[in-house]
């Protein structure tokens, strides 16, 4: 908590209904918040010998000391054991959740156990309640949000994290292992299956109402001054311009032109219809408004009007759908879908069911190729014959995955890596380390970054950017940059700053912002903290099963050329050796 150098944790045990508040000085001192605190709390409680969906496994969510009180410090970090990979799970979300938790008076939330029937949690400051959610069984994330909003107070100062049908436990059907947790409609704890973990606890939603007062720092003039400086850099420099203007979809077209946009299940790096689904086309034709997370003046959330006819006689229906580069890639280029309305349709269907769009897209891409090769038959998938670019069939496929009633539907719900273990076809999964890749096909650093990154995510270390900028492009330089970039991002995510503001919040600025609210950490100390947390997290990941080995990279990734040429297994193996050497040296010291 701000002003007292403690991390204030709310513990909720859904099995017993017990709740308690714990205050930890050691966590604040060593980890500040966000990634550091969430990683440490998971490390203390996770069971390496039990299934990720075992009720005893913990879910941790943490914010940071500057949450909401500085511009663009908007993220909450969740940690859990991932049901998708079986390994370490870490996922970040914006929306109003971090702000609500802050003003509810907590820096972290730890949920363990499982309720006997479906419930939702309401955290209104010190008042915490577990309520029945029987009526919400099978409800999609939009309706779930509405139903709970109508039943709780705190309009304007609340957040609702919820799962859709994909994450729920149901008879004769396991949860989709990449089910996500929706946050306030437009944001998500998107990757690695937090939704399935919440489902395994019979927890449909977590509503947080934050209405507590928090004193200004002692030296309020210093605080206001640094706030105004950061505010000015956020809004009046180019540091965050791209996120506000076209947003992340600005990448679609240039990546395709570069040959770096994964297309047709990564059989090629360019998409002939990229201009139809790029940021410019969406902005000109579909964009209706932008939205922001609480405390962010940028507003990167691009919201489209998905308008379609449903009957003759000029009958139209319309809904609002948020779009981003990763989503456009996952249900667009990767599936050969080049129509914007088709892209919006698939995003909406996947989102409402409560699934990670990237992982659902990579699963469908793999299944399409497997059907094309005759490995899978439509009869195994409710008769659905997947075809590149055919959005109607993909929409049916999404529904079949959520239902989980067919053999292929069930296996695709486990992710394409598990499905390929069962059916074959492991050579052409668009996944590394058990998780589908993000929308880049830039070179070694992207693939290696995905493999070595704690979240198996492009956000861990921005390998895609290293590929595009690094010179000389040597094995050593790539490995060192992947490690150094991730260690620095750990500082940013432990303060729980949105990584889109990483150009504003260099270590020096973070240090000054912390100082203005009475927390003394020099840039050097912050850097050292990031490096320490990096290697501590590596050890936790290894305890949960992570291995940095060449076998995690599918054959397909050595076939399809990148802008850095065709990747060679030998070079990847060499980089992994270099990484192991860095690891051994760091852990020895």
């Amino acid at each position, binding site marked *: 908590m701000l002003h007292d150098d403690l991390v204030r944790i709310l513990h909720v045990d859904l099995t017993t209904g017990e709740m308690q508040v714990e205050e930890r000085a050691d966590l604040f001192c060593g980890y500040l918040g966000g990634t550091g605190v969430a990683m440490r709390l998971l490390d203390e409680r996770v069971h390496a010998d039990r299934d990720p969906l075992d009720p005893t496994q913990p879910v941790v969510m943490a914010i940071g000391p500057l949450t*909401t009180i500085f511009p663009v410090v908007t993220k909450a970090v969740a940690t859990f054991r991932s049901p998708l990979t079986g390994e370490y799970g870490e996922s970040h979300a914006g929306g109003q959740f971090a*702000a609500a938790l802050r003003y509810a008076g907590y820096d972290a939330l730890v949920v363990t156990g499982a309720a006997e029937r479906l419930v939702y949690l309401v955290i209104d400051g010190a008042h915490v309640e577990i309520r029945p959610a029987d009526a919400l069984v099978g409800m999609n994330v939009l309706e779930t949000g509405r139903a709970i909003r109508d039943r709780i107070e705190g*309009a*304007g100062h609340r957040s609702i994290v919820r799962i859709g049908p994909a994450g729920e436990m149901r008879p004769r059907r396991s949860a989709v292992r990449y089910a996500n947790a929706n946050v306030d409609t437009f944001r998500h704890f998107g990757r690695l299956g937090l939704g399935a973990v919440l489902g395994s606890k019979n927890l449909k939603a977590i509503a947080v109402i934050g209405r507590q*007062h928090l004193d200004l720092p002692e030296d309020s003039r210093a605080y206001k001054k640094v706030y105004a400086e950061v505010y000015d850099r956020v809004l009046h420099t180019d540091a965050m311009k791209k996120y506000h203007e076209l947003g992340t979809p600005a990448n679609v077209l240039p990546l395709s032109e570069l040959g770096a946009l994964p297309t047709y299940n990564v059989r090629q790096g360019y998409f002939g219809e990229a201009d139809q689904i790029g940021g410019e086309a969406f902005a000109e034709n579909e964009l209706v408004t932008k939205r922001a*997370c*609480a*405390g962010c003046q940028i*507003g990167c959330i691009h919201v489209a009007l998905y308008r379609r006819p449903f009957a003759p006689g000029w009958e139209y229906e319309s809904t609002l759908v948020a779009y981003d580069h990763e989503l456009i890639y996952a249900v667009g280029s990767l599936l050969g879908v080049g129509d914007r309305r088709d892209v919006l349709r698939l995003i909406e269907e996947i989102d409402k069911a409560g699934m990670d769009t990237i992982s659902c897209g990579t699963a469908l891409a793999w299944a399409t190729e497997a059907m094309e090769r005759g490995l899978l038959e439509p009869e195994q998938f409710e008769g659905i014959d997947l075809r590149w670019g055919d959005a109607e069939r993909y929409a049916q496929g999404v529904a079949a995955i959520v239902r989980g009633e067919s053999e292929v539907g069930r296996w695709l719900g486990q992710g394409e890596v598990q499905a390929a273990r069962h059916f074959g076809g492991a050579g052409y999964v668009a996944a590394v380390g058990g998780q589908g890749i993000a929308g880049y096909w830039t070179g070694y650093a992207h693939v290696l970054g995905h493999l070595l990154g704690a979240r198996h995510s492009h956000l861990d270390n921005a390998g895609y950017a290293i590929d595009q900028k690094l010179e000389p492009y040597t094995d050593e330089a790539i490995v060192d940059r992947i490690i150094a970039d991730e260690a620095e991002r750990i500082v940013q995510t432990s303060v729980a700053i949105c990584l889109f503001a990483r150009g504003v919040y260099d270590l020096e600025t973070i240090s000054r912002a912390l100082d203005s609210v009475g927390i003394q950490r020099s840039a050097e100390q912050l850097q050292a903290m990031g490096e320490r947390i990096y290697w501590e997290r590596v050890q936790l990941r290894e305890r949960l099963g992570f291995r940095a080995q060449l076998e995690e990279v599918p054959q397909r990734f050595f076939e399809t050329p990148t802008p850095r040429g065709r990747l060679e297994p030998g070079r990847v193996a060499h980089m992994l050796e270099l990484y192991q050497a860095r690891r051994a040296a760091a852990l020895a010291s």
Partner: protein
Amino acid sequence: MPKILTAPRMARCIGCDSCMLACARMVYKSLSPYKSAIQIRSRGGVMGRMVANICTACAEPVPCVEVCPTDALTTRDGGRGMVYRKAECISCHKCVEVCPVQVIGWDQEEDKPIVCIFCGQCARFCPHDCLEMVEVA
């Protein structure tokens, strides 16, 4: 000429809470957006939109001034809105109850109302120019 706060361009609002945080920080000595005289909400309706609950600076007779049993609230020069003197306030809540647009909040810690002082800090920290201080006759 007195200035009043207006919200003429709320269709541009991104819901960032920056105005509420500014009011809390600059006026109410708080880090919490709950302590702000401007409150941003989303409203459902058929499509949903962002709205600003702000003091409309009523013309004379100003309702909150009328009900105030002390001189804590007096009519501003120029006859639009009020001037608030905390020292005179006896925490009776009458202003909160009478406000026709229900925008006077309550500061639990201070046990005093949260009222707009027409300083324009919220408009200054609005990144999309949704808010505007306007001179009134």
